[in-house]
């Protein structure tokens, strides 16, 4: 069980004390988080750390997930894509019926005594229809800066029924939420989570060997869901360009099959097909036994991490890599620009060719990669650790139910 005191060696005793002080104002508050999956993706990861930590400082926080059929998650993935800007998505009446009906069937997970109910992302958004009491918060983790207007207009009515909406970046706030209480909350990473904790070189080596990755040869990798927005095939393109010059390069594409990601399998298959059986491209998932510790070990083995997303909620895998001292070559999507400072913590790129050039530089100049990685870890330490996220979380509760 996570204890806030455990973070003192990293963030200082003063920070821990200030968290405890804030927590006093909402001690005992009953908080219920609801999302679509306990496993896979950034939201599940954030909740798996924030909920126990909130509990450790005195809140009564719980976490539930909605249950649905595959068809429901197919619809919610369409909604997700539409909110991220896919203009081709159209929600017909049958899809809306399934979406609303599944949410109605999940109404019983809302406890009557919950004081704050935090609903994450669009999948459980219509649960607000069951509001009897408490303060309801919609936490949107995706980039809604230019949504498919038709789809958004079918959902925004639900959003407006909430007491507050929370977005990851200022520019993600949809233009038509005037009058609502809107908060900004940068996602953060947990340095003590299995995915980010310190590992010994031997532990890292064992993981690499277990999956047939050669620790003696350079490795570049992307950790992300198999999803068109994450551009896994772009990562393969970068790998191929770099390998023209550095023929011993290996690529790791690591993802997971979240229960709510109906397109994951399709995009995984597309990625495997695109890799064309290349033995130096390792495409690994939770189904291969790649869990948090393995992801941690792989990230630490990268000469450079890639984050080639075309759209990004925030891109916490960037902070994860930087925290491990690994420079990141990333696009300018979502929160990546807050984490990657060009030429300082990694490189920001506009195209695949540019990404390939940057990766080459990082592999050829290990001293440069080390310097950028060091700066990256410092940047994360100052700005993106979970203790900051927890303080924002506590202030939100003070705002809603503080005494």
């Amino acid at each position, binding site marked *: 069980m996570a204890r806030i005191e455990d973070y003192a060696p990293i963030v*200082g005793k*003063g*920070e821990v004390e*200030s968290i405890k*002080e*804030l927590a006093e*104002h909402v001690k005992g508050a009953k908080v219920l988080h609801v999302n679509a999956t306990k496993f896979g993706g950034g939201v599940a990861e954030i909740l798996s750390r924030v909920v126990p930590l909130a509990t450790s400082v005195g809140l009564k926080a719980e976490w539930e997930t909605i249950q649905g059929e595959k068809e429901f998650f197919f619809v919610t993935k369409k909604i997700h894509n539409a909110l991220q800007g896919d203009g081709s998505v159209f929600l017909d009446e049958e899809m809306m019926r399934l979406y609303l009906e599944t949410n109605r069937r999940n109404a019983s997970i809302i406890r009557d005594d919950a004081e704050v109910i935090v609903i994450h992302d669009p999948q459980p958004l219509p649960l607000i229809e069951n509001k009897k009491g408490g*303060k309801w918060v919609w936490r949107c983790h995706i980039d809604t800066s230019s949504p498919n207007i038709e789809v958004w207009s079918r959902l925004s009515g639900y959003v407006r029924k909430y007491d507050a909406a929370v977005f990851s970046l*200022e520019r993600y*706030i949809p233009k038509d939420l*005037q*009058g609502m*209480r*809107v908060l*900004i909350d*940068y996602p953060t990473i947990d340095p003590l989570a299995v995915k980010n904790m310190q590992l010994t070189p031997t532990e890292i080596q064992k993981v690499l060997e277990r999956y047939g990755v050669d620790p003696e040869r350079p490795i570049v990798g992307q950790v992300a869901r198999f999803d068109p927005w994450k551009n896994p095939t772009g990562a393969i393109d970068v790998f191929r360009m770099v390998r023209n010059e550095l023929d011993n390069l290996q690529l790791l594409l690591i993802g997971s099959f979240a229960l709510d990601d109906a397109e994951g399998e399709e995009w995984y298959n597309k990625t495997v097909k695109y890799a064309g059986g290349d033995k130096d491209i390792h495409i690994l998932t939770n189904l291969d036994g790649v869990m948090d510790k393995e992801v941690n070990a792989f990230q630490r083995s990268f000469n450079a991490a890639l984050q080639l997303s075309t759209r990004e909620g925030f891109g916490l895998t960037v902070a994860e890599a930087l925290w491990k001292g690994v420079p990141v070559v990333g696009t*300018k999507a979502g929160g990546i*620009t*807050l984490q990657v*400072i*060009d*030429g*300082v913590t990694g490189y*920001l790129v506009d195209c695949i060719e540019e990404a390939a050039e940057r990766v080459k530089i990082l592999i050829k100049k290990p001293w440069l990669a080390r310097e950028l990685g060091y700066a990256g870890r*410092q*940047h994360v330490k*100052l*700005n*993106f650790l979970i203790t*900051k*996220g927890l*303080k*924002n979380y506590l*202030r939100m509760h*003070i*705002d*809603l*139910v*503080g*005494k």
Partner: protein
Amino acid sequence: MVIIHKNNYIVKLMKISEFVSSNFAAKVNDPLIKAASLIGGGKGRYRLVVTDDDGTVRGVISGRRILEVLIGRRATSVIEEKGLDLTLNEPVNLFMDEAHQIFLEDVNLETVLKYIGENMAGYVILVDQSGRFKGIVEEIGFLERLKGKKIGIRVEEIMSVRLHTENIGATVCDASIRMVNERVRRLPILEGGKVVGLITISDILKQLASAKEAGIEAAVYDIFNRKVEEVMTKKIVGVEPDADVGEAVKSLLEMDVSGLLVFRREDLVGIVSRIDIVGKTARIKGIEQMVEMML
């Protein structure tokens, strides 16, 4: 500052400390009303870094956050429980935002400009290795270095064309709600379609700073019921869309304002703010050229 006329070296020799606009910070236990007074009373100040007693940075409080509390959009539970008077006397720690734009004090200028340009960030906070506050670098520090320079970008290339306005008959409360809703810091005031003034969040907090002795809640009620024309700035500082950004810099600094209205003849066509100038100049001209201009 040491200047060596080789582009690659210039950046490293200009110290970020030369751009620090303030090393003043509020304390976590200061009452919110004090932060409001400090923002309202400070010339051109819009936000305050908040530290604990040993100077470690704990957060940032902005004018908008305070305005949100005043109109009941934030801290609603505390206000319902304690009333506005007592709420405004609660520590600023309960209301502020986490600071997310923190850099070590030895960061180089190039890094900060890249960050500001990429993210259109209005400021960065400098700390030492222990996290203690060393200063805030805001747009104004860069603008002062650009004063008197031709930038080579026209105002219309960087101005914001999303215009939010308020009518002369509106109350300060109406204007406050509109600024919070639209997430802007200033509103042009119109009469018969013509701009007759400008109201900013700082203008409103300034009123509060001077009226607080009368009892905070009563003062807020009084201020919010005033007409905007009693609080707005009537002297409009404008610039033409075809003007060089350098002219906007000059006006912003000389008039000590945070944003300029952009008029084509008499029509309001945009607003240009300090962050538009610094962030977009960094993007359009590139960091190296921007640094050269600041020498």
